[in-house]
């Protein structure tokens, strides 16, 4: 076995894997920049497991979930299609029953899962990592492995079950009303809901008001976010503020990281800088800025759009149509809430457990520094878990780290295909699968190039509207503070931790995304235009250029060339 094997059994192998599927797609939303070995191991093993678990539990008639491979830090995926019509029919029968709770008792189902996960999280967090024995640390790690496996089962059961009615709703809107989910009225219908991510943002906004009331505004504005904590500790007022803020981190918002799909950056618990950045953003917006007003406006617009659409369906259709509308609307809420309760929380606890081991191992000389643990995989954790002082994993870490840096420099191709196989063919297969996640989150619809618009980039509408502003190309979370009021954010994709900047910017351009990806959902909630799937936004647009986005037409114009 090669020592560089990161995800044993699931490393991409051109010879075998192109035989299985002629096309494999890079999950650019989650695996750009490339994953560390430890995180890649968790994702490829368990996201893969969860998707097949979810598709099988729901008995989706046309697709059995996805297969995943790991290649140079990238996650590559293909769909497992149902081949025979007979099998499709059999699956249809089971599907009918399996999907029912998503129509009948959505809140009960989701609420139950949230409770189950929170209980697991509490158990995992209960161990004091500093005083635990090596055996306890290893046990804690195994618990985290199991928690991650379970998280993905719940994640994908919920996601398939939530997005299926959404796809149906969109299709019916197309047929009955001639609007699809890139239409402003449609988008208004599925936005304007409260959810856990917004509640966290709302709390940060309240902290910004508190800072102003307490006369700490100057301190926040003048101090770089990284030093705010230390500065606050120097005054009584600051200490009072910090005490409350720490409580908020512990109870409400600490278990999240800047990058959702990675564990090598600190959680807010460890480093509250991102929280302070957001508070600074809100202070920049000024005292009369009212976050609630934005939310209320979205809610009003949703109700108006609902009314408009319901007026167009016949009286006989109204009953089930409005029921389906409600079921489809769960998407918006689920999309943000699952980030909070599932991915972010679990990944934060994987990091916590890994760092517990990492600190112990660095002390024992197994590795050089705690963060080196992210260049190992669970098999190696087990190898050295009980007696770390007896093993030297430093050479392995060094080699993997070097490889990892090369992966990032090289970048991964967006798709790996068999010779003679075209991207169009590959996309056709995805659409044929009717896989709701493939259609609405990862792949999205292909932009229509309307040459008559003479735009510089063509994409699809994620959130309607037209805006102009200075482009700010952001590739790393650390660059977020560069964003000024009125800018247009340009990035590969956005993640939940970026949500607060949406209240500051005029528009968004993302390389990849579909109508249910983060940028689209949050853009709609904040009422700013979002153009998605432009593919080359981050390479063609330079920070500082003036650009115009016309999301309704899916067009991006670079004005200041």
């Amino acid at each position, binding site marked *: 076995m090669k020592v560089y094997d990161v995800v044993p059994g699931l490393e991409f192998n051109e010879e075998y894997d192109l035989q299985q599927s002629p096309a494999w797609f890079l999950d650019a939303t989650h695996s750009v920049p490339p994953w560390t070995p430890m995180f890649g191991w968790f994702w490829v093993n368990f996201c893969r497991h969860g998707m097949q678990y979810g598709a099988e539990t729901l008995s989706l008639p046309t697709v059995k979930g996805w297969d995943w491979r790991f290649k140079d830090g990238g996650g590559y995926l293909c769909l497992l299609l149902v081949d025979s019509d007979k099998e499709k029919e059999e699956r249809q029968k089971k599907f009918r029953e399996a999907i029912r709770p998503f129509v009948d008792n959505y809140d009960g189902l989701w609420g139950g899962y949230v409770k189950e996960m929170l209980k697991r999280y509490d158990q995992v967090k209960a161990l004091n990592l500093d005083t635990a024995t090596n055996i306890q640390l290893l046990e804690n790690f195994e618990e985290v492995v199991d928690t991650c496996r379970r998280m993905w089962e719940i994640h994908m059961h919920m996601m398939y079950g939530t997005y*299926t009615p959404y796809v*149906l709703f969109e299709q019916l809107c197309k047929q009955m009303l001639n609007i699809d989910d890139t239409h402003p009225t449609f988008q208004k219908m599925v936005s304007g809901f409260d959810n856990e991510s917004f509640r966290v943002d709302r709390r940060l906004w309240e902290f910004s008001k508190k800072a102003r009331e307490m006369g700490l505004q100057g301190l926040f504005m003048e101090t770089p976010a990284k030093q705010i904590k230390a500065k606050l500790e120097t005054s009584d007022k600051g200490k009072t503020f910090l005490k409350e803020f720490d409580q908020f981190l512990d109870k409400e918002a600490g278990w999240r990281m800047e990058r959702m799909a990675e564990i090598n950056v600190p959680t807010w618990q460890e480093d509250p800088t991102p929280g302070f950045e957001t508070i600074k953003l809100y202070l920049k917006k000024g005292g009369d800025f009212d976050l609630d007003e934005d939310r209320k406006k979205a809610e009003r617009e949703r109700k108006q759009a609902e009314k408009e659409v319901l007026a167009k369906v016949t*009286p*006989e259709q109204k*009953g*089930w149509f409005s029921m389906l509308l409600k079921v489809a609307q769960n998407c918006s809420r689920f999309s943000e809430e699952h980030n909070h309760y599932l991915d972010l929380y679990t990944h934060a606890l994987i990091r916590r457990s890994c760092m517990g081991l990492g600190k112990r191992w660095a002390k024992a000389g197994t590795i050089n520094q705690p963060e080196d643990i992210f260049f190992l995989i669970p098999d190696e954790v087990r190898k050295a878990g009980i007696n770390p002082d007896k093993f030297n994993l430093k050479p392995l870490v060094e080699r993997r780290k070097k490889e990892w840096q090369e992966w990032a420099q090289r970048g991964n191709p967006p798709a790996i295909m068999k010779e003679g196989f075209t991207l169009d063919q590959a996309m056709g297969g995805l659409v044929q699968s009717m896989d709701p996640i493939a259609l609405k989150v990862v792949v999205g619809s292909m932009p229509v190039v309307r040459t008559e618009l003479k735009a510089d980039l063509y994409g699809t509408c994620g959130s309607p509207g037209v805006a102009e502003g200075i482009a700010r190309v952001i590739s790393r979370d650390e660059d977020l503070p560069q964003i000024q009021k009125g800018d247009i954010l340009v990035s590969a994709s956005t993640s939940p931790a970026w949500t607060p900047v949406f209240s500051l910017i005029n528009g968004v351009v993302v390389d990849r995304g579909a109508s249910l990806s983060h940028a689209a959902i949050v853009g709609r909630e904040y009422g700013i235009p979002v153009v998605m799937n432009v593919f080359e936004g981050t390479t063609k647009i330079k920070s500082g250029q003036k650009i115009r986005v016309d999301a309704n037409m899916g067009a991006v114009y670079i004005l200041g060339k």
Partner: protein
Amino acid sequence: MMPCTMLGAGRYHEGKPMGEKWTYWFGELGKEANDSVGKKCANLGELTKIGLRVPPGFAISVDGYRMFMKETGAGEEIKEYVRREFGDTKDVAQELEASRVIRGIIERKEMPSKMKEELIAHYKKLCEDCRLADLSVAVRSSGAVSMPGQMETYLNVKGAEEMVKKIIQVWGSAFTARAISFRFQQGLPIDWAPIGVAVLKMVNAKCAGVVLTVIPTTGDTSKIIIEGNWGLGESVVSGEVNPDSYIVDKETLDIERTVAEKTKMVVYSDKGTASVDIPEEKKRLSILVDEEVREIARICKQVEEHYGVPQDIEWVIDLDLPFPENLFFVQARPAKSVKKKGNDADYIIDLMTRLFK
């Protein structure tokens, strides 16, 4: 599915004493008369009883059928034919042939004179009541189990002679090939299919339609849906046109109105009824004003309360009479194929399943 109306099949046989009452004014009837005069007549009687305006008219009970069959000899002829020609296995061609022959036997017979006298007397009384000579009437089948659209109905029948002829034809229509096939499969007598007949004044319809006292797609019983079109109700019942619809809240009588673009309507013609173009200026015009909608809703609510289950009611507004005397109800029956509450979910699940085809 029951193809039509076998009133007490096997129960009303020849040999019952003659001379008993076999015609009834609607006002004399109620739902207890169902087995004797059929559901339609019993319902009209019941509607009259609970104070609803129905077009004036009378019912012919199954005893009328029995008498006709006996006195004309048609019953024996049919029996003989069936005995002779009908074996143990049947195919569609045989059933079609049997239908043709049996209906021929019935329609070639004259109405026995005593019966004819009584029918003509009833017709005359109707003309008097309506103060119209040669009153146009509808002659409809009325079975114990109603199957809309299956049995014959003759509209716009003028004159006593014509009416009598149509009554005979309605009796004959109990022997459609489908009805014969059904009876054969069920092991019921092939040759015996007593049905009731309703004879009622034709309404000079300004507009007409149907009411459901429940929303069929959702099972919502707090609302009433009225659908209608210009002219006769046939265009609405048959589903040929996209009708105007009015959803009325049973409590508040608030109206949710959807005015459709209506292109065709059914009207009387020389030969019965015909589908004609709706004049341009009436195409997008609501067929009912609020006052009429509320009156229909109010009355239908009463009918539902009377019967205890959601109703499917046919209504018509007369062109000549003043409101509200021009509002007639021609049929009321339990609403069928109405979704139970909660079935929206089933429907959505159905749609989702189809999504993956």
